[in-house]
């Protein structure tokens, strides 16, 4: 027996909502010149669409062979950002400052796309709604458990910080004027999710608060919970 279709449908709808909302964030950030984590939002758009397609076969718009390099590149991008952050490189409000969790998210997406065909081939259904993972179906089910635990840990950590004062969220560095030079330095590796808000960076004014940071956090939580659910289905 696979996961109930209504349940995977709810999660798929949630993911589409997150994807649409994050796409809207990118547009709004550009229009209102409010900083947002462009790489995170782009990643959430892609993950939302991809996960909705995995959860409900009718929402699948691209085959796994296309998604795999996308999320591989995403993992590399966030990994490189994590290394930069670790070395204390110049940061930007337009990039995620804690990229490690997003690197793991991209890696988890890659994992699921690599494993899912194996599991789907052993069941009659297509996608997660027809999937019933079993311990013997995957030799890597423990990895799925570890990734799921990471996702839940990330969710509770983000939820824990939801009550930070709004003024703290609105803080903007004086060095925001350096954003243009940072973002036009061509440091982004090829093939990574495009930082579509780059144009906005050059026009961002110092002191602008982040765009709806709590909504962004809720998106991260929704993404983490759904990804955790999908990983649990693979146990």
């Amino acid at each position, binding site marked *: 027996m696979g996961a109930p279709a209504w349940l995977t449908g709810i999660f798929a709808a949630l993911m589409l909502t997150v994807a649409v909302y994050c796409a809207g964030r990118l547009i709004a950030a550009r229009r209102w010149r409010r900083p947002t984590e462009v790489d995170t939002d782009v990643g959430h758009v892609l993950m939302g669409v991809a996960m909705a397609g995995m959860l409900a076969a009718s929402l699948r718009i691209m085959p796994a062979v296309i998604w795999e390099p996308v999320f591989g590149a995403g993992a590399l991008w966030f990994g490189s950002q994590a290394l930069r952050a670790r070395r204390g490189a110049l940061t930007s409000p337009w990039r995620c400052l804690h990229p490690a969790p997003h690197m793991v998210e991209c890696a988890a997406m890659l994992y699921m796309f690599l494993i899912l065909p194996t599991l789907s081939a052993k069941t009659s259904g297509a996608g997660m709604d027809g999937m019933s993972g079993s311990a013997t179906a995957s030799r890597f089910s423990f990895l799925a458990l570890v990734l*799921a635990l990471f996702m839940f840990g990330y969710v509770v950590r983000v939820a824990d910080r*939801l009550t930070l004062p709004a003024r703290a969220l609105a803080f903007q560095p004086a060095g925001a004027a350096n954003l243009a030079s940072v973002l036009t330095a061509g440091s982004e590796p090829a093939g990574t999710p495009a930082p579509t808000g780059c144009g906005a960076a050059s026009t961002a004014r110092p002191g602008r608060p982040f765009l709806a940071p709590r909504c962004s956090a809720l998106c991260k939580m929704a993404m983490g919970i759904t990804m955790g659910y999908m990983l649990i289905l693979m146990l």
Partner: protein
Amino acid sequence: MSQSLAVGHAPPRPAAQQRLAGLEPRRALQLALGVLWLLDGMLQFQPFMFGRGFPQMLAGSAAGNPAAVARPITWSATLISHHEVLLNAVFAAVQLLLGLGIAWRPTVKLALGASVAWALSVWWLGEGLGGLLAGTANPVNGAPGAVILYALLAFLLWPADRDPSAPSVAARTAGRSVALGSWLVVWLGLAVLAILPASRAPQAISDTISDMASGEPAWLAWIDNHLASALAGHGLPASIVLAALLGAIALGILLPASASASAPASARRAVIVLAVAVAIVLWLAQGLGGMLTGSGTDPDSGPLLALLALAFWPLAAPAPPAVPAPPAGPAASAASAPPAAFPGSAVSPGEA
């Protein structure tokens, strides 16, 4: 959102910085408990749980219990079997909300309180009181029941201080004597269970472990099968060793834990490390709670015992309360907005 906080090179304001730098120990343990509730909720959403297998599993916990205990278990299992999809979805959602409620500061107390009520009802109706009255309880099969440990942890991690100068999170929350009593009840109780007939029969522990291996991934089944075959026919010595180990952990808490005297604190830490190690071994013997079989409802008692042990980790003496600096501008006034976010183990604003 949290990722958006430390923007650029600007120094975060003190209160926010304190939150970003690290978690207060009790809050970290609360979050770990929240993760476990989230995990439970998601495990409850597994396809297996929406089928007949789940109520049958619940009904199985009635076996061997006194009629007064068994009858409500059978009744609830029957009820669930009639509405298995709806009720299972509700159960999963409740556990999901408990996890999120613990993670979100304004609802910590509500979620912890609700988790106690939920855990106690599940302990009875879902786990048959951990088999304590059925004579089947055994530390290796998860006795006294993982879910009762959730309730105990919710109590020991309650966000208020009864004894702020106590040497551990649990003792600060519940008071030294209550925390000590809780520790002794759990670990001495496990030691006693380890030498009861359900554990000391020649094949008892071996059979329990080999039963866990069925349906597990090959590597875990290999560990459990080898452990089971090593213990086959040696139930009595194995149970005595296990009981001695658990008893030593129980009594080890009586070692002084003053952070100022480094040697005793080290001895206490060694006991906690031993407790965590035993919990991990028990967890492996429990087949990670059957989570990798697609039909596990929780991670079993191993992680809960480890979390419980960490709640008794010796802490440094709480720092004296900081004198708030007079506001010197907008940034300073913003900094003072959340007063005393995490001084020692003080209650944070969201938890108060």
